[in-house]
């Protein structure tokens, strides 16, 4: 059975290691924070200028001066720090952020990502996405395997304007966990009950299936 968005977040949370500094994008990536494994401490970076992001505030505790990169009111954890946007992207650019989780509209088999612009639609801008994908050493994409029309989002080549080149390391969809390797998308895990055949049929880019592909443990 295909994962729901919470399960996708839960699976991505297994990529976390103790002490990781993590940047979570808007959408499914944000949910990852809810599934941090026990015994593991991660510190969330918000690129508008905060390390040590905490949960959303309780009613009445919101502060207009304290928001995340999605402009939502948030809180801080003990040990947090604030900084300006240049330092924020400085630490991203110098590879200090251990893991970046992003949504995407398309990923190509060489790790290109498209997630900022759809021709013909109003372009809202790339925000920090281009900086993140150009610099992060470990990028995991959270997305659906296909678009609403049923077309694969794991492609030989991105059709949409790209956000960054050769940067994605892993992809977690409702169907599978895949890794970008030299030859394309390497299938690492299947969602419980999902067949390799279904994943093959929904993956346009080169899919590498080696041996038995285990089911995800979530």
């Amino acid at each position, binding site marked *: 059975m295909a994962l729901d968005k919470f399960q996708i977040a839960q699976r991505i949370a297994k990529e976390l290691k103790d002490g990781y500094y993590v940047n979570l994008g808007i959408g499914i990536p944000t949910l990852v924070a809810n599934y941090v494994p026990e015994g593991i401490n991660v510190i969330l970076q*918000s*690129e*508008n*200028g*905060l390390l040590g992001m905490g*949960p*959303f*505030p*309780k*009613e009445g505790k*919101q*502060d*207009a*001066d*304290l*928001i*995340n990169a*999605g*402009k*939502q*009111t*948030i809180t801080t954890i003990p040990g947090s720090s*604030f*900084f*300006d*946007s*240049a330092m*924020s*992207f*400085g630490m*991203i*650019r110098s590879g200090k952020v251990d893991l970046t989780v992003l949504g995407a509209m398309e990923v190509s088999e060489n790790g*290109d990502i498209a997630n900022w612009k759809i021709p013909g639609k*109003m*372009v*809202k*801008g*790339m*925000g*920090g*996405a*281009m*900086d993140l994908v*150009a*610099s992060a050493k470990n990028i995991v994409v959270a997305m659906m395997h296909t678009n609403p029309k049923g077309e694969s989002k794991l492609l030989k080549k991105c059709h949409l*304007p*790209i*956000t*960054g*080149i050769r940067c994605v390391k892993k992809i977690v969809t409702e169907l599978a966990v895949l890794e970008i390797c030299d030859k394309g998308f390497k299938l690492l895990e299947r969602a419980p009950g999902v067949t390799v055949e279904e994943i093959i049929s929904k993956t346009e880019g080169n899919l590498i299936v080696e041996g038995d592909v285990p089911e995800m443990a979530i």
Partner: protein
Amino acid sequence: MNKLYENADLAIADIIDGSVLMLGGFGLCGIPENCIAALVKKGVKQLTCISNNAGVDDFGIGLMLQQKQVKKMISSYVGENAEFERQLLSGELEVELIPQGTLATRCMAAGYGMPAIYTPAGVGTEVAEGKEVRNFNGKDYLLEMAFDADFAIVKAWKGDTMGNLIFKDTARNFNPLMAMAGKITIAEVEHLVPTGELDPNHIHTPGIYVQRIFEGKHYEKRIEQLTLSK
């Protein structure tokens, strides 16, 4: 030399049509509300605004867009603004979208006297079109130029009469970077304190970067996405 101004109207009095402005803030967080209101009141037009976002329809830079005061926006993200979209699609408004880190670093470059910086953001994308690409240690970077703005308009939490500024929480964002980058920097602060009251180790923007300062009034500090825990 007196840097102290009575209010926003006086502090922005010499901003003229066609000026290039930097405006601090991320979304509606840490925006110079008083100066924006004064710019709307003054009705100055044909402005180029460098700001991470363009406000919402009825707040922030959105108020200047309503009055058609903006010729060009240089931003990283301009969603959540119907009037913006209308002007963009009708060709009344020009927009240059640049990556957020590039925006921040081009401000910093100006403040630090660096004419240009190299960043990997946008390599291989349409952002790279027309720009120099250079390889250092096996990785490609784009050459991006320092901004050149007539005025930087920023909002701080506290400030003193010498122009020293302290920001609060994520309202810091682009404010200290733009403060360094303007030919003339105008700072509005929530709390103006006498010189000597701020701890010199806590100051984020040294007064040398600030030419004008005033205590703002009636801060609305609107929240764009109120999100609460249950």
